[in-house]
């Protein structure tokens, strides 16, 4: 850290402490926050120390590598563009014929999800050990997802505030103190109102109101418990379907064993939502929001990401194949305080009857895995000199 950064960091720390919750109980022992920002928590340093071999290629670059233009040689649509589209819609775990550059350690944000320290774990930027965030390895060296302003990262984050579909609300009940409370009830649901913003339209303001969405959003209603220590909320794991329209599509994400670690203040909350992201749900979410054109904004490639994600998945083994279906991950999240309108009797009944949403289970009819593995990369020719990634 440079000399200049030290006083800045101290100032930022003091400002954070000042903004933290005091020991006062919120009105009615309840407080709610609406999500305004979400992005995958990755280590993205300006010097790219986590990507010593550089950043990955995207759809456009891979196409040029795989199917170079050659004088007098025809390129056939089915053998080129359509083949790549098939590999995107029907991704496989066959080894990638193209290089894939993983995000490297030792530092990555996240939480210790399994209570153990393994060889694949990271250390968080604030020094916590045992961080489980294999998602950093998948997305850490893809420009689209890197901070601070990778294209997909930017849009996905911006849409959280902009679109009502994404109106995720965390309500804490039974709160005696925002600074310390050993047991609080936590309810997660979707609101149905726009967020109060300033005149510029991009900054959320506290004090807005929200109604619960039980009409369309009952699948997002979840309950868990948590504790507040020194102004930091930590919740017990809960399987969580959450709405995330990333680019005007009604799409969701699913996190197994999701837990919140949020620094609370009377007007805001900020921190991490961490757990094991369901791979098939993540990939379908990406496909539906970000087709090849959008993936090219910041050089990502669906087929390569899928292979890496399946390879690095570290939880929820499939009972038949043994392959892991979920990957450790974390979301960087910001919330703003809102007032939730009291629930009506109809809404209370809907809450009681709500069935939690489920993850997407994948395209049912796929090629046999053995057939996939017999190929280098689902039909694409191997590129000379490209290191082939192994299968875990």
């Amino acid at each position: 850290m440079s000399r200049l950064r030290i006083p800045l960091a101290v100032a930022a720390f003091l400002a954070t402490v000042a903004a933290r919750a005091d020991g006062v109980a919120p009105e009615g022992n309840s407080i709610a926050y609406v999500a305004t920002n979400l992005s995958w928590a990755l280590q993205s340093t300006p010097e790219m120390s986590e990507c010593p071999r550089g950043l990955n290629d995207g759809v456009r670059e891979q196409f040029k590598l795989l199917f170079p233009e050659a004088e007098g040689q025809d390129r056939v649509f089915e053998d080129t563009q359509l083949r790549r589209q098939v590999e995107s819609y029907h991704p496989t775990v066959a080894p990638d014929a193209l290089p894939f550059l993983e995000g490297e350690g030792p530092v990555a944000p996240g939480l210790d999800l399994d209570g153990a320290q393994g060889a694949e774990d990271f250390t968080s930027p604030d020094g916590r050990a045992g961080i489980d965030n294999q998602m950093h390895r998948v997305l850490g060296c893809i420009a689209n997802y890197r901070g601070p302003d990778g294209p997909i990262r930017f849009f996905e984050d911006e849409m959280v505030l902009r679109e009502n579909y994404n109106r995720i609300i965390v309500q804490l009940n039974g709160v005696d103190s925002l600074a310390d409370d050993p047991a609080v009830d936590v309810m997660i649901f979707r609101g149905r109102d726009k967020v109060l913003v300033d005149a510029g339209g991009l900054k959320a303001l506290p004090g807005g109101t929200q109604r619960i969405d039980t009409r369309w959003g009952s699948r997002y209603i979840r309950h868990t418990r948590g504790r507040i220590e020194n102004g930091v909320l930590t919740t017990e794991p809960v399987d969580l379907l959450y709405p995330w329209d990333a680019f005007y599509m009604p799409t969701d994400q699913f996190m197994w064993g999701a837990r919140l670690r949020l620094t609370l203040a009377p007007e805001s909350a900020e921190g991490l939502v961490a757990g094991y992201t369901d791979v098939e749900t993540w990939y379908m979410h990406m496909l539906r929001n970000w087709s090849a054109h959008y993936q090219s904004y910041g050089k990502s490639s669906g087929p390569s990401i899928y292979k890496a994600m399946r390879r690095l998945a570290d939880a929820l083994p499939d009972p038949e194949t043994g392959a892991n279906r979920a990957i450790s991950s974390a979301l960087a999240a910001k919330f703003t305080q809102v007032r939730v309108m009291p629930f009506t009797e109809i809404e209370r009944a809907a809450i009681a009857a709500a069935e939690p949403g489920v993850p997407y289970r994948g395209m049912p009819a796929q090629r046999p895995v053995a057939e996939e593995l017999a190929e280098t990369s689902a039909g694409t020719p191997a590129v000379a000199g490209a290191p082939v990634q192994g299968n875990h």
Partner: protein
Amino acid sequence: MRDAARGRLAASLTLAACLLPSALAGAASSEPYLPEPLPPGFRVEATELDGPVFADAKGQTLYRWPYRTMRNGVTGDAKGESNCADTASTESAGLMSPYPGGLLLPERDARPSCQALWPPAFAKDGDEGIGRWSVIERRDGRRQWAYDGAALYTSVRDRRPGDVLGGDSYRHEGDAPAVRVPIQPRPDLPPGFAVSTTFRGRLLHTARGFSVYAFDDDTATRSACDSACEHRFNPVQAPATARKHGDWSIFTRASGERQWMYRGKPLYVFAEDDRVRSLGGSDVPGWRNVYTQETPPPPAGFTVQDTSSGQVLADARGRTVYSYTCGDDAPDQLSCEHPADTQVYRLAMCGGGSAERCGKNFPYVEAPDGARSRGRLWTVVEIDPATGRLAARGQAGALRVWAYRERPVYTFAGDARPGEVNADGLGEFQAEREGFRAFWWRDDFFRAGN
């Protein structure tokens, strides 16, 4: 019954419950339009989805091909000229990022020319323009009818007067192909109103796009919407110059305020609508959106299901129903979504090139024995499952499936439960260009009014 199960049942509406007649149903079955001078023999045909459309002397619907800016260039017809050629394109144009042009197109030996699918509306010797109609000269020297300067065509998909199977009047936004659209007479509406084609009918709304509503308890002489009600449903004011005309008349409220009335019902906007073409006001008991004409109902047995974003059309088991959209990347932007078109794109998308896997992932919505076509919009077509193309008459193994505008409809095997829409937008450019889209009966978050 468990509470949860009861809740799910309540969320799963039967289509019959959703198809309650609108406040205006039965008052008129087709949309009034403003008459205008037409070329000799040309006429207006009433249609089920698009409302009135212009047709040639044989009753063939007339289409234009609007100039459209694509990701990498433009295509379509500029005013006064036709780019629809009689030679078939064999290479992709690279109009859509990120893939390059110059790729040899699928089934190029059998690929039709633009003109083969879109015969120009040729003008005869001596034909002269009239009103908004003109005659332009094509590059080959032949004369072609134009409307507002746009060259006109018919579609080989249309076989009978009133067919609109080549294109439609839905809003095609974003990265949709450069599609052909039917030309239509102007709706007979007072200033300040407009109408849009939606899945459920031709939705009446203000010129700014906000839906108008009618109240069941209102009559042509009495409004049951009192002052408290008026705070939620604001009367649509009629100016002092407004006069009775056709379906339109003036209602005078107790306050003396003049209010537009359509087919005997005073009109309102919903104060809580924060988006255009909303159906939200119809959640209030007794209130309904207003359509100049409603589309025929989907086939018996179809259902409507609640999703996280609104309601979708679903099959009898509650599985979301999808349509397949496709336009190729050639300069002439031919459709690849009709079963008479190439199936290469669809089979790649849904089955990795395998018709068998495609049928498992995206099974057709099969029509039950004895099911028959109902009108033009929903029909039963016979499909060869091995190719995805129309089956030959009497072909063994052919599937009888439901089709919307002659395009088969599908469910997605990846939807495990009613209300899931896991394949909506799956494809290129969120399936605006190619891929599967759910039939949104109502969408409160994205495609208002649909």
